[in-house]
């Protein structure tokens, strides 16, 4: 698909207890593109996403085998530093969860974790990221107000700004617009399209139209397996596999 994959998944198996969630997943995620993971509920798409930044570690009874190579480094290597891996990935969850602090401190949180930036640097960084997510004009007069006072759409953009502030290479979105109204959704989608110039973006979505609007490639997952992976238009309009055909049928008709 591409000669320079950003994330390379090799024979990844994930099980929780006795339940196999992902079975022998191998895929190369291309650099600086938007990739959507689609599939029915419970097929393992969120698990696949969370395996990229090792957020699965926190799940009880989870067992992971295989490799996930990011920038040439296997993140499941016992010697790998988990905070370093996660710093490379910004996560945007289903519902926005700003941290229980001010708008400013939310964006400054990551940079403060990974270093001790000076006040002037932080001010600049916060402004930069809030501008990148189109929030600056809405919040510049109340940077020190609690983040919880923002609207839910603004909160999601704040969460994106917070993630961008740690200077990740990859953005992971887990149905990031499912709690948002249509206007906020389209703002976030536009941001994704804009941000792919600098970042590799992997999104989990169950909205095929959204996948078509924003992504360059689509991965179709079914029952813990990757059924098909290909360029968006090709996969949606001319699927090769029977299962994919079934799944996207509703979209075409």
């Amino acid at each position, binding site marked *: 698909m591409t000669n320079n994959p950003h994330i390379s998944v090799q024979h990844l198996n994930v099980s929780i207890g006795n339940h196999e969630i992902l079975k022998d997943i191998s895929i190369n995620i291309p650099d600086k593109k938007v990739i959507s993971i689609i599939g029915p509920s419970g097929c393992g798409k969120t698990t696949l996403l969370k395996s990229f930044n090792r957020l699965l570690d926190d799940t009880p009874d989870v067992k992971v085998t295989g490799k996930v190579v990011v920038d040439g480094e296997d993140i499941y290597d016992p010697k790998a530093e988990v905070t*370093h891996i*996660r710093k490379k*990935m910004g996560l945007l969850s289903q519902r926005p969860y700003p*941290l229980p602090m001010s708008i400013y401190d939310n964006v400054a949180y990551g940079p403060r*974790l990974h270093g001790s930036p000076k006040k002037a640097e932080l001010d600049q960084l916060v402004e930069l990221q809030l501008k990148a997510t189109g929030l600056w004009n809405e919040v510049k007069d109340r940077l020190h107000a*609690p983040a919880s006072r923002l609207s839910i759409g603004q909160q999601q953009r704040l969460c994106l700004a*917070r*993630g961008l502030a740690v200077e990740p290479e990859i953005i992971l979105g887990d149905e990031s617009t499912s709690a948002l109204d249509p206007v906020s959704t389209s703002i976030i989608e536009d941001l994704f399209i804009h941000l792919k110039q600098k970042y590799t973006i992997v999104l989990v979505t169950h909205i095929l139209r959204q996948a078509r609007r924003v992504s360059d490639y689509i991965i179709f997952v079914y029952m813990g397996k990757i059924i098909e992976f290909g360029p968006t238009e090709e996969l949606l309009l001319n699927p090769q596999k029977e299962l994919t055909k079934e799944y996207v049928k509703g979209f075409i008709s």
Partner: protein
Amino acid sequence: MIRRKLEENFFRVLMLLSIIIVSGSFFLIVGTIFYKGVPFMNWDMITKIPGGGFYIGKEGGVLNAIIGSLYIAGGATVLGLFISSPVAIYINMYLGSRNIIANSLRIAFDVLFGIPSIVYGAFGFLIMVYFGIKASLLGGILAVTLLVIPILVRTLDEVIITVPKELRDASLALGATRWEMSKVVLRQIRPGIFTAILLSFGRAIGDVASVLFTAGFSDNIPTSLHQPAATLPLAIFFQLGSPVEEVQGRAYASALILTIVVLIITVLSSLLAKRFSKNKIQ
């Protein structure tokens, strides 16, 4: 239709009845304390220590017991918080929700929660004998700390459980270590921490049995950890046992003081909880 309506009304009346019983007994208790205590309330009661002949009805007050109680309840709550918050953080943030050690610890603390305070008093007394500590402020604080630790651990535990997993993930995803994530969780539960403190302080200040052997009793205000200290519940107990009417009345006045102290702490902590919840994520 009629059956459903009857059922609805029946249970509503039952609930109202319970509310009346509960609030009725509350007002009856507070009313009795006020009725019997107010005539014996005066400035001396809260500004003076017992004078000579206080226990046969002469001059003095219970300042020694007020201060002693505040020292012991405050000391035990602070000490207890230092011991129990790491426990609550560890079992939640480091061990995970289905961990067998975490759940065994929860059961253990539930059992400790239910142990009568006299047992803590007796245990504290044994430890004091072992280390050669006499009945003192220190002994009282240690015994009451044992008493409040299970309350603090379980309350903090319950509060931490309510924090959405996504909030923890959000901080981890930014590259936070577990301890850094825990700090975010602690910020989120700040109002709950005040509830825990309030519960612990309320239990600590009202308990007699745990301080009976361990804190001793003194008519003076302790000036060091090694001096015995009076407590309000014990002061009430001693005065109530007196045949002198004046002294009995002062027992009720002391009970009034204890109630007011608890009231002040309650109001204070709920105000603080509100103040610290402005950043809380809903």
